[in-house]
């Protein structure tokens, strides 16, 4: 075991995969000479050279589309978005080309590509740099959507995403690049569609993913433990494919559910998970599912307002109390 930051774990994943497969390359804004806007690709230009690590102009639609065309013709691009807020410039490429090519061509062209970069709010970045996009991408057939909440998962899932033959939206968070965690030594991957229980419990299931596992779900569970409430924290890790069975197993044990996400509430990922729980575990529920999300507001700048929009530990604890009727 090595103790690594998530930044270094992601770097290791890319470095190992590029060393393993010469068809894998990295492209994006500032990924090379600048060593990455958030230093995730630090040292990769020096190690692999400009034939494998490409700095681009600020042209998201252009390099996203270029990556998809490269994937159609046998390469395996890793396309870094400086943030997924900028990927909206490339949404036509991702949705109309990457996601649909395999079906449109009757299965002739697959698109093995990873779009990766930070997603969601950071700290007072205002409306155009703070959106969460899991539900956007998860709605599109043809895409896979992956998140992680610790360094071990970050590395194992990114390696799997790079090896996958379909387009993968790999959502990171600039707030947790420095978060340390144990990473297994040697080669390992984590399959898509397999979640993990991050904290076992018996009284309530808290479903969370990405940075909210470490920032909200686990701290809330600690607080709740002091009140004698044992919360089970379930991280599906990949939004699509979704590990329903892991969720259902937990719900059948605890009978109470709180879903925590940073997406807007309307048509959030929690809406889909709730529907599946109601359909498959209706008789197991002792309370309606509660959702803790960002409010449906374009993110304001002021600290007080940003805090009022984003989910927080207090709102998670309140939701847990509600489903427990305490």
């Amino acid at each position: 075991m090595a103790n690594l930051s998530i930044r270094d774990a992601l770097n290791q994943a890319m470095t190992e995969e590029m060393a393993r497969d010469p068809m894998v390359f990295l492209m994006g804004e500032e990924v090379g000479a600048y060593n990455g806007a958030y230093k995730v690709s630090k040292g990769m230009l020096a190690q692999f050279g400009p034939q494998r690590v490409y700095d681009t102009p600020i042209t998201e639609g252009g390099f996203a589309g270029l990556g998809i065309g490269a994937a159609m013709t046998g390469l395996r691009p890793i396309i870094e978005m400086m943030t997924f807020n900028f990927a909206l410039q490339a949404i036509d490429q991702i949705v109309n080309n990457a996601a649909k090519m395999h079906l449109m061509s009757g299965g002739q062209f697959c698109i093995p590509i990873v779009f990766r970069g930070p997603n969601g709010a950071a700290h007072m970045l205002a409306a155009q740099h703070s959106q969460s996009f899991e539900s956007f991408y998860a709605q599109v057939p043809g895409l896979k959507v992956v998140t992680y909440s610790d360094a071990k998962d970050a590395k194992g899932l990114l390696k799997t995403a790079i090896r996958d033959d379909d387009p993968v939206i790999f959502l990171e968070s600039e707030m947790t690049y420095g978060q340390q965690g144990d990473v297994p030594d040697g080669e390992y991957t984590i399959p898509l569609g397999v979640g993990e229980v991050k904290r076992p419990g018996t009284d309530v299931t808290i479903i969370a993913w990405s940075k909210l596992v470490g920032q909200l779900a686990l701290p809330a569970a600690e607080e709740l433990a002091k009140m004698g409430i044992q919360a089970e924290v379930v991280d599906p890790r990949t939004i699509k494919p979704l590990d329903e069975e892991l969720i259902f197993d937990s719900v059948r044990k605890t009978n109470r559910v709180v879903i925590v996400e940073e997406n807007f509430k309307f048509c959030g990922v929690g809406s889909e998970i709730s529907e599946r729980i109601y359909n498959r575990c209706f008789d197991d529920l002792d309370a309606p599912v509660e959702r803790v999300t960002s409010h449906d507001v374009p993110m304001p700048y002021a600290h007080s307002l940003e805090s009022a929009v984003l989910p927080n530990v207090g709102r998670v604890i309140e939701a847990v109390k509600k489903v427990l009727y305490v």
Partner: protein
Amino acid sequence: MPVKKKAEAVAVEAPKQQKLALSKQQLFHFLRQMRQIRSLEERSAQAYGQGKIGGFCHLYIGQEAVAVGAVAATRPDDYVLTTYRDHGMALARGIQPVAILGELFGRVIGCSKGRGGSMHMFDKQLNFLGGHGIVGGHIALGTGAAFSSKYRGEDRVVLCFFGEGAVHNGGFHESLNLASLWGLPIVFVCENNRYGMGTAVERTTKVVDLHKKAESYGMAHGIVNGMDVLEVYEQSKRAIAGARAGIPCFLEMTCYRFRGHSMSDPVHSHYRTKEEVECYREQDPILLLTEHMKNHGLITDEELSELERQVSAEIRAAMDAALASPEPDPATVFDYIYKNPIRPGTRR
């Protein structure tokens, strides 16, 4: 009267006598392919009227010289991709008429197994990277295929076609910039048929010499008479040779569609006059080549009649075979969403 654009300053100019260097066999091939496309499209129009083809259907009639001349200048391992007006390009690249018609009818024999339809013809074996439905959306894909060729150290070239309507789209400009910056082996071919749907090119830009837009990106460019298959072939050949050496190029091919934008658009509605359409019909690319061949004693009236008879019979047979193919089984509706499928409700 419409502005008749003829070949002017061409950055990649070729000596005219090269036309005569083409063999009779080559010219015959051009004529045959253009006739095949014309016949296939006329049959498609009929079939559309009979309700055998769904959705949108954009005919290539009038623009045959561009697809036939340009694709003839490629190698089989080069890549070709185009817009939703793709039936003619698919045929020029070598997709069999039965597979094109089968796709139009939504049958399993179709080149995209009935999943793509009129706008989305694909053939991986022929390096035909598709017909694409979003104006300007596929230009970056072609640029990516060229990147791929260079990345692997190959000398394969991409021929990326689009209409003049795409030239005002960000995808065009972003792609030309990247291709020029990185010296990618690609020829961008603008089929300037003068109208983006019903909007004349003069109503869309102050710079109507579209090929000059490439100057912003330090890219070689030229204008080609897209009604003359021999000129299309020669200029494409030169541009492709340049691209193979790492010099991308932008060719504007002036042409004209004799039919409406799609089947719902009449031949000449309020945006263009009957006289204009008739004027361009005098430059029909099939007519031009036929006259050229007759004038040089390369084809007789008997050979011409025989060619027409053969093509007509071939397309009719293809139509029958396509209609005999079944529609895709509804049980296969979830096929091809993923290469590595997600199986709902299962773990591991």
